[in-house]
């Protein structure tokens, strides 16, 4: 039969992957939500600016060689009285370009925020899956700890963990370790959200037929949990992590503002605001104003994106 040896006729021109994605409900909802588009644009611009800070920033604020103390307190957009240098957003007391410090500060804020959310996600997803799949006293223990932790405000938990961890670090490493301690503290204050959501979703998935089938052909608990159930509970995880990112950025800024977060050698947006508050009364408003506006834009747009994502992925609202 010549028919069988023939190559199968190409399927009636299937749209490409990209076109399929463009046509999906999700993309459609996105294209018709101006808030989501603007929020995503702001997030992308800030994210790229932070990522490429060393190439974008006109100065390296942490290289003393490029600093000129004479440039201190230059108002934004005006030439300095002594050096005639102009700075887009002005300079601080040590003549550091505020625009550059914001770019570098945003790097640290985003790095801490994203790492903390990733860590919280890993801890929360694993514990949530295990709690749902194993059940019994393991589940009781995990969920009890989660319940107890939920009764404390997350920022307080992060502060306490930071304090305790700082106490346990040897003094000579405290400044170097501060960023990592900060990430762990914020992550540990936030894992509960992930664990509860994953457990809830996994409890439903656990009783579905595909899990029973997998168990029947003898797959172990570990592959069933992470290869079969996990992909099916990921969409709520995505929503939670976006909202968590906004909260983590604000938590990091708050802790650094209070002076118990990023050290002065690695200033994040919160540290910059803390420094700027000192110049509020002497009239150098730009040292405080621009970092604060950047923080707000970042936190607000991530938050709006998370809200939109929650509505878009919720089938009940369609």
């Amino acid at each position, binding site marked *: 039969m010549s028919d069988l040896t023939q190559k199968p006729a190409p399927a009636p021109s299937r749209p490409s992957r990209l076109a399929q994605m463009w046509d999906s409900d999700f993309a459609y909802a996105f294209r018709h939500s101006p808030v989501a588009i603007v929020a995503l644009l702001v997030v992308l611009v800030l994210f790229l600016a932070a990522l490429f800070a060393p190439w974008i920033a006109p100065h390296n604020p942490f290289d003393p060689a490029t600093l000129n103390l004479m440039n201190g307190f230059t108002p934004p957009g005006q030439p300095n009285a002594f050096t005639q240098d102009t700075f887009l957003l002005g300079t601080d007391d040590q003549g550091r370009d505020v625009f550059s410090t914001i770019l570098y500060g945003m790097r640290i804020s985003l790095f801490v925020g994203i790492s903390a959310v990733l860590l919280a996600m890993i801890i929360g997803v694993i514990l949530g899956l295990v709690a749902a799949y194993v059940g019994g006293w393991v589940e009781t223990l995990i*969920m*009890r700890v989660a*319940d*107890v932790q939920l*009764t*404390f*405000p997350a*920022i*307080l938990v992060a*502060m*306490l963990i*930071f*304090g*305790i961890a*700082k*106490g*346990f670090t040897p*003094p000579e490493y405290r400044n170097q370790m501060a960023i990592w301690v900060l990430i762990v503290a914020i992550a540990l204050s936030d894992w509960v959200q992930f664990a509860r959501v994953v457990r809830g979703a996994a409890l439903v998935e656990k009783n579905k037929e595909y899990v029973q089938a997998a168990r029947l052909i003898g797959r172990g608990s570990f592959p069933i949990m992470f290869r079969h159930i996990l992909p099916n509970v990921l969409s709520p995880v995505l929503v939670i992590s976006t909202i968590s990112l906004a909260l983590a950025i*604000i938590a990091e*800024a*708050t802790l650094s*503002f*209070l*002076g*118990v977060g990023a050290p002065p050698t690695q200033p994040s947006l919160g540290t910059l*605001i803390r420094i700027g*508050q000192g110049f*509020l*009364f002497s009239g150098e*408003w730009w040292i*405080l104003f621009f970092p*604060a506006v950047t*923080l*707000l834009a970042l*936190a*607000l747009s991530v*938050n709006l994106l998370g809200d939109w994502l929650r509505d878009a992925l919720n089938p009940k609202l369609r």
Partner: protein
Amino acid sequence: MLAYIIRRVFQSVIVLLVVGLVAFSMFRFVGDPIDNMLGQERTQADIDRLRTELGLDKPFPVQYFKFLQGAVEGNFGVSYRQGRPVSTIIAERAPATLELAAVSGFLAITLGIALGVFTAIRRQGFAANAIMTVSLIGVSLPTFLIGILLIYIFSVELDLLPSFGRGETVKIGNWSTGFLTASGLKALILPAITLGLYQMTLIMRLVRSEMLEVLRADYVRFARARGLTDRVINFRHALKNTLVPVITVTGLQLGSIIAFAIITETVFQWPGVGLLFINAIQFVDIPVMAAYLMLISVMFVSINLIVDLLYYAIDPRLRIDGRTA
């Protein structure tokens, strides 16, 4: 009922024991307490004597038990930084925090309920919509930025209110109060607003949504049909029925006010317990940190226990089986 109470109390005690263990480990393993207490000129005999005196030669569980005993009696040792008993320092600082928390809690509840009722009754009005929009922005602003904004407007630009400290205080026994002097009251305004704003928006939105629900209920329609005035319907019939959830949430928020006071106190350099705690973290003053940790845990755990038990007493559905989750 009894089994539930016992289980709940038991659980609270375990939480406190774990927190106590963390606090105790900080004491025991961060640095050497002997090093912190004795100066440069010490002999091995001194060290041995102090070690026995403090009970540091005893086994770990015995030491832990002694630590708990001390904590229950309010004895948390001596601050490394100030060289004075921690309990004295906290007792000095507590009035500032408690006054601030009380005023902002009062503001949050009264304004929150009033604005909630207003926005529910005038749902379509311009003012109500404006309030709702502003509250949305208020919720997304971090607390410390609200504080700085208020300082900028009222202290820097208008020069009306002080930007830091408590103003003049009057001592009544061991309690130093800022309520009795003009400067004390003026100093209280900005921090109280900063601290209360978030809770206020929370209460406002809750009251609003509960009110909207209740105003649709049959008994309100019948009240209207009977010809009762709007005022009587809104306040005597509707508001009363929204208060149960409001009271619960307010109770749970009580602890948050004390916790968030840490941020407000730092912004305004308010000499309260929160600022003390932040300084303790900065200078790794372990006894103060441990004491604060224990205090705040006891507070949160007891508030939650009380709210849970009240809920259990109010809501009969929970009594069918004891599981809360």
